[in-house]
């Protein structure tokens, strides 16, 4: 007990923690391989096959699994960043309205695309916009919401205030929800199931490789940025005065974290729509496994998020035949994540 810290050096704990991280990397790689190999041989058929399928199917599946990994990593990272930024263990991309903003953007697109087409039909951008489908409106909605929440979430002095930010996010989220329901009533019945799929999050195997590549580079950029503010995020979980007295420029830190979280969320939404619970659950799993230190959390959380969403996506893919077509993956994450979160909630009394 009374061993001085100075004598320990990189003690046993440090190497155990590092070993755990290496194990996690290996496990994620294994899950990636497994998920690419497992799935129905022919899309839509009920024949499960383990092993190498034909080249075209493998290529499609790699796009799907890769998208799942990218989206999971982005959401988990955004969750860690927002929880650290708001000093609140219940924060996730949903609570700040970023996800619902993206969904609202897509709804506007779906409802008004004919009108927009009539105006823009001859414009050269029209083809480009059409080629990316719902990606561009999702991005626009997410970024617009980010900007509004950011502008509302400041105190009079200009310092971003966690409580104000949280409240304006919650309000904007419900406003977006209302907007979605309003637009939903403007849509004729035929188009509605499509919209519902989108609102729950849906990972498609038919995404253009370019879109996946753009999302991947956005997530890598966000990860690098997040790793660079990791040490400061630790100090940022103290009170404002204490953090500033330790030499952390809080305003700069909060703006950076917010921009990174917005970028990551927008990238994931552009790829798969708003998938819930990953951004809430994964940070808590990581804290349970690796402790609250953001220097470790920001390394491990994207791996855990990617593994979780790849498994969920594979489950959805393999059970398509049982449920009249594939379930939206957001249903699985919510069905698994909700009870698990409640389990954590009842097991651990203190969140601080």
């Amino acid at each position, binding site marked *: *007990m*009374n061993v*001085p*810290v*100075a004598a*320990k*050096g*990189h*003690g046993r704990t*440090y190497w155990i*923690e*590092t070993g755990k*991280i290496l194990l996690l990397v290996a496990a994620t790689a294994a899950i990636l391989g497994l998920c690419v190999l497992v799935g129905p041989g022919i899309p839509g058929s009920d024949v499960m096959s383990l092993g190498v399928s034909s080249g075209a199917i493998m290529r499609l599946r790699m796009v799907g699994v890769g998208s799942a990994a990218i989206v999971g990593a982005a959401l988990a990272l955004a969750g860690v960043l927002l929880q*650290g930024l708001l*000093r*609140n*263990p219940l924060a996730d991309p949903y609570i700040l309205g970023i996800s619902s903003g993206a969904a609202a953007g897509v709804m506007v697109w779906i409802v008004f695309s004919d009108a927009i087409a009539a105006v823009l039909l001859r414009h050269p951008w029209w083809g480009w916009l059409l080629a990316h489908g719902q990606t561009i409106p999702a991005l626009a909605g997410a970024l617009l919401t980010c900007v509004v929440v950011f502008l509302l979430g400041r105190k*009079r*002095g200009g310092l971003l205030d966690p409580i104000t930010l949280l409240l304006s996010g919650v309000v904007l989220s419900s406003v977006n929800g209302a907007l979605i329901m309003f637009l939903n009533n403007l849509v004729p019945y035929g188009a509605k199931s499509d919209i519902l799929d989108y609102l729950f999050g849906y990972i498609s195997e038919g995404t253009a490789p370019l879109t996946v590549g753009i999302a991947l580079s956005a997530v890598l950029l966000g990860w690098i940025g997040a790793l660079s503010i990791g*040490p400061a995020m*630790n*100090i940022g*979980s*103290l*009170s*404002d*005065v*204490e953090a*500033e*007295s*330790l*030499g*952390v*420029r809080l305003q700069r830190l909060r703006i950076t974290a917010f921009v990174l979280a917005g970028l990551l969320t927008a990238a994931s939404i552009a790829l798969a729509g708003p998938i819930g619970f990953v951004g809430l659950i994964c940070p808590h799993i990581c*804290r349970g496994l690796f*402790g*609250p*230190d953001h*220097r*470790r959390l920001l*390394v491990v959380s994207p791996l855990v998020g990617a593994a979780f969403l790849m498994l969920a996506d594979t489950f959805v893919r393999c059970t398509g035949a049982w449920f009249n077509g594939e379930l939206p993956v957001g249903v699985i994450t919510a069905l698994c994540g909700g009870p698990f979160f409640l389990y954590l909630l009842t097991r651990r009394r*203190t969140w*601080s």
Partner: protein
Amino acid sequence: MTSSPAPRKPLPPPTGSPPEALPSRRPGAALTLTARGVCFAFGATAPSRFARQHPSYLRSINVAQGLESEHPSRRVYWPWWPRRSRRAEPTDDLVMAPASVLENVSIDLPPGQVTVILGPNGSGKSTLLHTLLGYLRPYRGEVLLNRQPLREFSAVELAEAMAFVSQTPSVAFAFTVEEIVAMGRWPHRRDGERRRREWLGGHGSPSDRAAVDEALDMTHVRHLTGRTFAELSGGERQRVIIARALAQDAPILLLDEPTAALDLWHQLELLHLLRDLAHRRGRTVGWVAHELNLARRFCDQAVLMNQGRVVAAGAPGQVLTPETLEPVYQVRVTVNGGQLAFTRRSEGVPAGMPPLTES
């Protein structure tokens, strides 16, 4: 500190007395912290360089000086770019100031001395401490670190110079005591070697670990190292926060009611420690307190505040007398065997509260 690179603006050379009993690990740079005519009000800032060029600001000065009428037709909407009117002389004065929390406060915290700041609730003690720290910016007056204004230092340089113990500490996640104390080493992390060791949450460089060790021992929290902040009692939390400030290893130590939650033994230990740090290591200690007798016993200099102003400052024997304390605290003060004793003043019942009947 031995291998840290020189800061961009090197702090002035040490002038304090050399340490004697406590072994010193660093050449203790002795720093003086001075507040010169500091005024602070929430929501009030000195107009910025750009705001002072703005037509509406210049006009408000002209209006205030009676050079211009306030008729709305004179308002300049366009062009919005700077257009100096002929007579307006921009000043640093505030045109409209809300009620000030600090009014014209000038104090001096010299190295090698414990300065205690006293005063009733809401007299501006904590605000003064936050202003000295550079967290709040005064709208008039300035804070000087060895005769150099605070704004000329970067955030990390200020953190190297000043450590702070907050009255209301909070830790958002389940960090262990050891991790919290190690956070005090954050300002010293610019060393490349330290950075490498920090990767994935390592323990930092040997000097970091030595500082953390010493701080854990100084405040007697070594036995708590593996526990999280939420599990600790109020006094233990207080000691952990003080340990973090000590691990910061700064020449100036500002403490906001550090003894509030401590038991008697720990209070005396802490105050002896503060006095030793000041006298033997040449540290500058600023301490906000309510315990007048402890303050009288352990400080070298006392500052008595009331309603945002300094009422008395100087040696504790001169400041902590019944004549100065009675009007500030609204109690009857007597000196009883070298100790101050306080009784309620019967006529000083707060307004709106019925007098208690004595049984």
